[in-house]
């Protein structure tokens, strides 16, 4: 069943740029993540304020879901709570490189000229060239 929406607001929503859309979503995600961490650790907003040397009202502003967090603020909260807030998927990126080059391994004749972004281990393998032709990842 279609949920009720206000026509005027819907018209305005159509014109909202993707970056604003993402900004608000990320900001709410961050507020929720911080809230979850505080709950997990049994810490209240006032305690976090104390840990960071801020007023409680400042922490409340962060939690509204529309705050424009700086990377510095996020890092300070991470340091105070000892937990990651931004979960950047570094491992997935390395894995992507690894699988890509592993798959290519059998077919590589010469190493790529620019292989600076390849993890060292894989780079070494590529340059040493494989001795077998088993195509086990295909």
């Amino acid at each position, binding site marked *: 069943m279609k*949920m*009720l*929406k*206000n026509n*005027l*607001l819907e018209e*305005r*929503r159509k*014109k*909202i*740029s993707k970056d*604003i*859309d993402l*900004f*608000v*979503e990320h900001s*709410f995600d961050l*507020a*929720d993540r911080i*809230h979850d961490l505080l709950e997990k650790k049994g810490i209240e907003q006032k305690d976090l304020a104390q840990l960071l040397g801020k007023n409680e009202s400042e922490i*409340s*502003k962060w*939690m*509204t*879901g*529309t*705050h*424009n967090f700086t990377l510095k603020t996020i890092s300070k909260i991470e340091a105070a709570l000892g937990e990651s807030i931004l979960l950047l998927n570094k491992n997935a990126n390395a894995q992507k490189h690894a699988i890509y080059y592993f798959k290519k391994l059998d077919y590589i004749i010469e190493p790529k000229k620019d292989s600076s972004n390849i993890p060292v281990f894989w780079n070494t393998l590529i340059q040493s060239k494989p001795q077998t032709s088993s195509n086990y990842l295909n």
Partner: protein
Amino acid sequence: MKSKIEIVEFEEYEKVYFYTLKYYGEVTEVDKFFDQFPDGCEFDEEINILIKAIEQIGERGAFMRYFRYEGKQNDNVYAIPIESISLRLYVIRLSENIVILGNGGRKTTPTYNEDPFLNSCVKLLQEIDGYIRKRLNSGSLSIINKQIFGNTTFYLTSNENA
């Protein structure tokens, strides 16, 4: 003179039903708010953020942390704030699933009480909130899941906001 005002449906989301207030013969209170900031106005970006925030609250739930305390300690009057320009959209937060949107604007004074217009926006919501609580207690109004049922019309003795 008594003014007739009623709670009307505004938007529905997965977790939250948004209502607003409407004086007889007028546009809704939340329409009055957005009319202050027409499309393409100076604060377009902030208004767009607010519109998206309503959406996010609707999809996640009207958790207390998303709102700013306004009004008095014993009422349900809050604001959805956009701090960068001190913008306030005043609301009655009845539960995690029901929010009644009111009017508001930019806060240019240290407290809302010092701004006659913002003060009138908050006072209206405080008055309606009081009536709602009385009717919920008496049973003439009820909340089922995320919707309000029953007598949603009120007659106010003063109409500072009109």
